[in-house]
C-alpha cells in the first residue's frame, strides 16, 4: 500500500519535467526526423519529398565543404587537449600556491559569452590592424588575413576554440590527476625516476580515463561549433566557404534562406555524424585507455 503511494508520488514529481522534455525535446526530435523528408514552401507549408534532401545534401559542394571544415575544426580543437593536460599537470604540482587564482584566470574564457569572445578575436586576427599580425611582424613574419582568407579562417577559429576550452578541460583533468594515488609517485621516486619520467610513466597512463572523457566531450562540442563562425567571419565574403560549419549551414538554410526541410536534414546528418564518431572513439579507447 505504501509502495502504491510511492509510485504515485514518483510519477507526480517527474511529471512536470517529463512533460517539458516530451514537448521541447522528444517531440522536436521526431518532428525534425519527419521534416528532413520534406520541402518547405517559401511562405510556409511542407511537402513530402522522400530522401531528396539527403541526396541533394550529399551531392552539394557546399555541404561537403562544411563537413570538411567541421571535421578539420574538431581535429584541431582535439589537438589542443595536450595543452590542457600540461596546464592541469602544472596546477597539480605539489605545494603550488595560488591554485585558485590560476584556475580562475584559465577558466575566464569559458564563462565569457562566446559572442563577445568572437568579436574580440576577430579584431585580434584582423590582417591589417590586428595585434596578432603586428606581433608576428615584429619577429619578421608576414601574417595572413586570418579571418578574411578561406584558407586560414578555420585555423583562426580553432585557435579561439582551443583558447576557450583549455580552462574547462584543465579543470576536469586536474580532478583526474588528483585522483591518482600518491603512493604510485612515492614508489617511483624511490626507484629514482625524475619528475618528467614520472609524468610519462605514471601520470599520463593513469589519467587516460579522464583524458578519454575530455576528448569525447571536446569532439562533440567542436562538431557543433556555430557562435565563433557567426561572429568572427565576414558572412558575405569568400572566407565563409573555408569556415562554414555544419551548424552554420543549418542556420543559413533554415533561418536565412528559409529552407526548413533541408535544414532539418542537415540536423539529422549532424546527429548521425556525432553518433558515428562517438562510437568510433569508444572503439578506439580500448587501444589507449587504461582502466585499473
Amino acid at each position, binding site marked *: 500500500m505504501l509502495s502504491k503511494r510511492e509510485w504515485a508520488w514518483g510519477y507526480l514529481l517527474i511529471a512536470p519535467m517529463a512533460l517539458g522534455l516530451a514537448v521541447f525535446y522528444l517531440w522536436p526530435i521526431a518532428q525534425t526526423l519527419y521534416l528532413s523528408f520534406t520541402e518547405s514552401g517559401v511562405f510556409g507549408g511542407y511537402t513530402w519529398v522522400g530522401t531528396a534532401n539527403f541526396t541533394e545534401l550529399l551531392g552539394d559542394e557546399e555541404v561537403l565543404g562544411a563537413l570538411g571544415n567541421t571535421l578539420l575544426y574538431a581535429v584541431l580543437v582535439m589537438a589542443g587537449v595536450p595543452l590542457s593536460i600540461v596546464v592541469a599537470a602544472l596546477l597539480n*604540482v605539489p605545494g603550488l600556491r595560488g591554485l585558485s587564482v590560476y*584556475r580562475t584566470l584559465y577558466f575566464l574564457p569559458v564563462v565569457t559569452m562566446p559572442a563577445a569572445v568572437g568579436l574580440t578575436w576577430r579584431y585580434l586576427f584582423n590582417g591589417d590592424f590586428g595585434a596578432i599580425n603586428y606581433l608576428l611582424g615584429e619577429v619578421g613574419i608576414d601574417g595572413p588575413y586570418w579571418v578574411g582568407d578561406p584558407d586560414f579562417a578555420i585555423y583562426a577559429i580553432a585557435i579561439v576554440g582551443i583558447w576557450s576550452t583549455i580552462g574547462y578541460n584543465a579543470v576536469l583533468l586536474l580532478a583526474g590527476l588528483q585522483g591518482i594515488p600518491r603512493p604510485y609517485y612515492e614508489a617511483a621516486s624511490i626507484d629514482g625516476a625524475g619528475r618528467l619520467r614520472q609524468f610519462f610513466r605514471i601520470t599520463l597512463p593513469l589519467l587516460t580515463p579522464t583524458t578519454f572523457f575530455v576528448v569525447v566531450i571536446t569532439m562533440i562540442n567542436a562538431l557543433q561549433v556555430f557562435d565563433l563562425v557567426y561572429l568572427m567571419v565576414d558572412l558575405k565574403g569568400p572566407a565563409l566557404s573555408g569556415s562554414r560549419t555544419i551548424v552554420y549551414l543549418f542556420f543559413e538554410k533554415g533561418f536565412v534562406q528559409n529552407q526548413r526541410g533541408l535544414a532539418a536534414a542537415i540536423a539529422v546528418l549532424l546527429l548521425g555524424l556525432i553518433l558515428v564518431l562517438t562510437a568510433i572513439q569508444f572503439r578506439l579507447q580500448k587501444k589507449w585507455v587504461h582502466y585499473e
Partner: protein
Amino acid sequence: MNRPRTWPAHVLLTVGALVMLAPFAWQVVVSLQTLPDSLRLPPKFTPSWQWSNFGDVFRSVPLARQFLNTVVVAAVVTAGQLLLCSLAAYAFARLRFPGRGAVFLLFLAVLMVPGELFIIPRYEIMQGLGWLNTLQALIAPGVFGAFGTFLLRQFFRTLPRELDEAARLDGANPLQIYWHIMLPLVRPGLLALGLLTVMWSWSSLLWPLVVNTDPEMMTLSAGLASLRGQFQTNFPILFAGSVVASLPVIALFVVLQRHLIAGITFTGSKG
C-alpha cells in the same frame, strides 16, 4: 619527501595566464578608443578614453532593455531548472516506481542529441503559440533539462537511506521529505547547477538569434551579434557592447568559482 621547486610551474602558468587574459585587456582598451585610433598602424595599445562609445552602443541597440531581458531569462530559467530538475532527480534517486529505469534512459538519450535537432520544431511551436519575439519563447524550453536532472540525481543518490526512512516514520510524504530534508542537503549540487544554468542561458546564441528577431526582445548575445551586422568592423563600439555584456557573468564567476568548478568536476568524474 622533499618539497619540489614550484617556481618553474609559476613561470609557465603565468605566461599561459597572460595569453588567456590578453584578449580581455585588449577588449577593454579598444572599447575606449576612437574609431581612427582603432585603425592605426602600428596598433595603438593605449585607450583614448572615448567614453562616448558606451553611450553610443546603448543608443544604437536597446542594450539596457537587452540586459534586462537577459537577466530575466537567466533568472527564470535557473529558478525553473532548479525546481523541476530537483523534483525529477529526487524521484529518480529516492523513489521506486515501475518504469523508472526506462524513463530515466529516455532522459539520458535526450542528452546525447545535438541541440540543433530541437530548433526548427521548437520554432514552429513558438510560432503556433504566437510567442515569437517574446521572453517566454526564450524561457519555456530552457526550464527543462535532462542534464540538470542527471546531475542532481547523482547528488541525491549520495545521501544515506536512513534519512527518508526516519522522516517517513514521522508521517512526512515524499514531497515534504524532498523540500525539507533532501533539498538542503544537495545545496552544493543546486549551486553548481544554478551557476551552470545562468552561464548557459547568458551565453546561448543560436536559439535566441532565431526566435527573437525584434531587438527589444533580444538577449545580449543576439544583440551583440546584430550589433556586428550594424557596425561591421567598428570595433570600439562593438567592444563597448561586449564589455557590458560579459562583465556580469565574469563577476559572478570570480565570486562563486569554487562552486562552479566543484559542479563541473562532479560531472566529469561521474561521466
